């Protein structure tokens, strides 16, 4: 089969050429931030490092890391490498704990963002004749505007639907006939549910594919979205500190996300030792924005967990593939000493009959023991008058969770549609332990 590409020259650049380009770009970046960003100059000086010490991409390990806290400490614009005069856009990520993380873009940065998002959409077969429906939030969050920029860069008719009002979203899907959508995977399921409840067959829509991100999701959830909406569901990855959506994207092989390595250099490190881990091993994802002008971050620690995949992809792209990020180091719950990710619960539930793919985890502390309760929604169809059958659903979920997590959870069956639906990122965890620790 032939694979769709927006920028074949960049996306299939021979590795040696790519590495040469990365080396040039990193050296130029290091020089620039040393001169323009006092924070980095200070860090370099502390380490006794001069920009000239960085001669190729192999020297990257000599460079200091950047943490989210560094962005907060330099709130709002302290890490910008250009005068405000050159900045044309500001975004910020929601600060649930402390200050917001503020990011800026020059005109060239926006062009770059458009380019990497266009590659993302192009990889799913989107061309200028398509119509894009963007249901990420528009505003300070990068999802909406980033998706919009990519769609317009490709030349698609672009619908800035933003989030919320599911009924209106579906009306747009029916009347404007968009051929692709961008939203969170959990919202895609809410849309699917709405269609089913209102007797609207997914085939009556014009959708061919969708690009889902902003929260980790499982292969099982992909299957569910693809089947219920009758589309190809692609994973996209990005974070505002690096550029927003468009950092890494899936191709039609749907086997790992190609990192836009000509602009964003990826490392996977052990979060404890900070040393790189070999390809094929999970670790924390670290990015260096080699070409960004307004906010070029050096070795930014994302706290996302991922893995560099080995071997080349059959699509012909030379960019390294990132295995679907499986969670965030800060999403990870430690329950009775065991690492637990919400995505693990999701994959258990997706494989089971009789329950909807909506759930909520509640973690409490009783005495000195952590207690995990998983609220699981019964489906309308699975409800039966026979209590035994309902209890066997609960028992089955409990056993499967135990075998996947290695710890026992209390499973509570709740009424259909009773778990809150999210239009943006789903909040699946209520950790009550945090409120009682001082």
């Amino acid at each position, binding site marked *: 089969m032939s694979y769709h590409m927006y920028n074949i020259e960049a996306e299939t650049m021979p590795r040696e050429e790519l590495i040469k380009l990365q080396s040039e770009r990193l050296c130029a970046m290091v020089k620039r931030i040393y001169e323009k960003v006092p924070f980095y100059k200070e860090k370099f000086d502390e380490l006794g490092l001069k920009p000239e010490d960085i001669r190729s991409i192999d020297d990257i390990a000599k460079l200091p890391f950047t943490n989210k806290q560094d962005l907060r400490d330099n709130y709002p614009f302290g890490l910008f490498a250009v005068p405000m005069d050159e900045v044309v856009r500001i975004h910020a990520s929601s600060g649930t704990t402390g200050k917001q993380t503020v990011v800026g873009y020059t005109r060239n940065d926006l062009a770059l963002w458009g380019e990497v998002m266009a590659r993302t959409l192009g990889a799913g077969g989107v061309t200028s004749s398509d119509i894009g429906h963007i249901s990420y939030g528009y505003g300070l969050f990068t999802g909406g505007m980033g998706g919009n920029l990519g769609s317009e860069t490709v030349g698609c008719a672009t619908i800035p639907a933003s989030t919320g009002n599911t009924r209106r979203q579906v009306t747009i899907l029916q009347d404007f006939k968009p051929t692709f959508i961008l939203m969170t995977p959990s919202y895609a399921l809410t849309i699917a549910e709405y269609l089913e409840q209102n007797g609207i067959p997914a085939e009556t829509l014009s959708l061919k594919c969708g690009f889902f991100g902003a929260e980790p999701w499982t292969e099982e959830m992909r299957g569910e979205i693809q089947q219920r909406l009758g589309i190809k569901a692609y994973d996209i990855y990005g974070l505002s500190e690096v550029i927003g959506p468009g950092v890494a994207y899936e191709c039609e092989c749907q086997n790992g996300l190609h990192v836009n390595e000509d602009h964003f250099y990826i490392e996977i490190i052990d979060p404890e030792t900070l040393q790189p881990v070999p390809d094929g091993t999970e670790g924390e994802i670290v990015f260096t924005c080699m070409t960004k002008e307004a906010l070029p971050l050096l070795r930014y620690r994302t706290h996302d967990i991922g893995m560099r995949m080995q071997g080349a992809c059959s699509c012909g792209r030379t960019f390294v593939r990132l295995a679907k990020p499986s969670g965030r180091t800060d999403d990870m719950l430690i329950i009775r000493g065991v690492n637990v990710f919400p995505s693990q619960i999701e994959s258990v539930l997706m494989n089971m009959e009789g329950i909807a793919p909506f759930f909520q985890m509640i973690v409490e502390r009783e005495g000195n023991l952590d207690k995990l309760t998983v609220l699981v929604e019964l489906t309308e169809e699975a409800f039966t*008058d026979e209590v035994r059958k309902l209890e066997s659903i609960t028992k089955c979920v409990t056993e499967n969770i135990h075998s996947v997590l290695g710890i026992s959870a209390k499973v509570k069956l709740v009424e259909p549609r009773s778990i809150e639906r999210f239009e943006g990122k789903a909040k699946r965890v209520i950790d009550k332990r945090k409120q009682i620790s001082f």
Partner: protein
Amino acid sequence: MILKQISVFVENRYGAIRDITKILADAGINIRALSVADTTDFGVVRMIVDKRKPALKALRENGMTVKETDVIALVSDDRPGSLYKALCLLAENEILVEYSYGFVSPMGDDAIIILKCDDMQKALSCLTESGFKLLTAEDVKF
């Protein structure tokens, strides 16, 4: 002469059954018999109502999870030993009773026993052939 019972899924929370009775009261529906099966986390409310279709509609419109279940409404004399005879018949014919609940008929001196069996058709024919009287949907509309 199978009777349709309405079963509603409820979580164990304050006011769960109250909510159901409110919906039915507002819709002008009379509950003829009611039984609640409970587990630690959820329950199933089982009811025989006078107007089944409007009851189902009202419950569903209010977001309740509802199912119809076939049951038998056995008319039994309201005196010692009368239920025993019917249950002997079912046991002899190897029919399992999954659950049962009863109420006293306002029509006369009879007791009404709701029975859910593993083999409903067999239970039905055994009981009718032996001359037991069963209620129909018409009978509960009073």
